[in-house]
């Protein structure tokens, strides 16, 4: 279908954008457009105002600090996919990016757009959760920081107040030699995942798990960390029994039920995806990295 009528604003600076946003609290921000435009064309979104932030140069970029990678909210997914910094320091993101949509949607799709749209099965929120990312959120009066764990407020709902905009995301980096894996199952390549799992792991010199993060998408209305499994695995030898037990903790979750897949299917799929992600991440981990 065709989009409904709205007013279009194109600020050229961050300050101007935040000023517009505070004057029009119900406006929608247009980043890469790969979620908002379908919602407009489907007429499930009816904003009076759309604020296009594509011309604000300082909202995009990838930078390394001593212990983190900081990514501007308008950084395109394709730029992340091709970035040597991401490949070296955030291999989990590199693997996840290749599974987002298609080559032709990653060219415009942005990291900030994906985090704020917060589709339950989107890849980047899962990566941000696994990494305990920090989100920088600004309004006309100033800035605040939010942990990714506190960002999802419900289905497709980020914790953003009126007038606020996500401007950058900081990903703390894990030690060199850590293992990672992003595994998802979708019915067709490029579709939203039915279940997705991102794992980060570090091993002790004696082969036990020193540190682990397991994040899940697609299973519940918001992405979440599988903390029960993380607790169960920390300090343990990662043998088959341990992995099977960890994967089984997904059965505590009340799965999403939608036209893409019934809850019963997600319940059966989840442990398989988690086990696969754990095994792959462990395989890629060097001993004694921690």
């Amino acid at each position, binding site marked *: 279908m065709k989009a409904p009528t709205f007013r279009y604003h194109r600020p050229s600076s961050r300050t101007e954008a935040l000023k517009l946003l505070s004057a029009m609290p119900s406006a929608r921000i247009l980043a890469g*457009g790969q979620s908002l435009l379908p919602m407009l064309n489907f007429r499930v979104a009816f904003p009076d105002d759309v604020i296009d932030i594509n011309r604000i140069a300082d909202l995009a970029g990838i930078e390394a600090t001593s212990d983190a990678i900081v990514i501007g909210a308008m950084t395109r997914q394709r730029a992340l996919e091709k970035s040597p910094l991401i490949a070296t320091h955030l291999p989990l993101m590199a693997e996840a990016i290749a599974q987002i949509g298609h080559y032709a949607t990653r060219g415009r799709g942005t990291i900030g757009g994906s985090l704020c749209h917060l589709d339950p099965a989107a890849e980047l929120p899962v990566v941000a959760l696994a990494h305990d990312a920090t989100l920088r959120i600004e309004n006309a009066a100033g800035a605040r920081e939010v942990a990714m764990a506190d960002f999802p407020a419900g289905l497709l709902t980020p914790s953003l107040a009126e007038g606020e905009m996500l401007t950058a995301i900081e990903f703390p980096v894990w030690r060199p030699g850590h293992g990672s894996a992003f595994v998802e199952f979708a019915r067709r390549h490029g579709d939203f995942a039915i279940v997705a799992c991102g794992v980060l792991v570090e091993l002790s010199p004696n082969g036990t798990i020193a540190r682990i993060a397991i994040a899940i998408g697609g299973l519940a209305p918001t992405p979440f960390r599988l903390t029960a499994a993380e607790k169960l695995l920390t300090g343990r030898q990662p043998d088959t029994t341990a992995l099977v037990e960890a994967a089984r903790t997904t059965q505590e979750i009340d799965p999403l039920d939608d036209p893409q897949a019934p809850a019963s299917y997600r319940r059966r799929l989840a442990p398989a995806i988690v086990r696969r992600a754990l095994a792959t991440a462990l395989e890629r981990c060097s001993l004694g990295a921690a």
Partner: protein
Amino acid sequence: MTASRIDIALTVNGVPCKGAAEPRTNLADFLRHDLALTGTHVGCEHGSCGACTIIVDGVVTRSCLMLAAQADGAAVETIEGLSQGDKLHPLQQAFWERHGLQCGFCTPGILMTLTAYLREDPSPDAETLRDVLSGNLCRCTGYQNIVTAALDAAARMREGVAA
């Protein structure tokens, strides 16, 4: 609610063009209805089929997922710009020779996707091409000849056949 029309000046295939559109008009419709460039096709209008794929400022783009107003000042490339007069682009030539199309509805989007990709990676293998084209639905061909044609065209372009 009323929304005034926005003036849009851009280049399409190197030619400066001007027009005006409501904010809600997407770039695909602007190209087709206002600039009469109907080579860009519209299938789904929500980013799934790839028929509307074009190149905007060097970036492969779903023109149904971009507002015409956003293209103000942009350099747009569409299927109409591929051939040089009567001389087909190597991709077009290879698709013709290898039967890479049947009804042709998907073809403009596929050729523009490939044009953008081959600039980044001139020597892709078949598996990579299948991944690149996973966002372009073709209901006719079964993709075999599309991939063969794309590999063929990539080889010709590497040999320096004018691209």
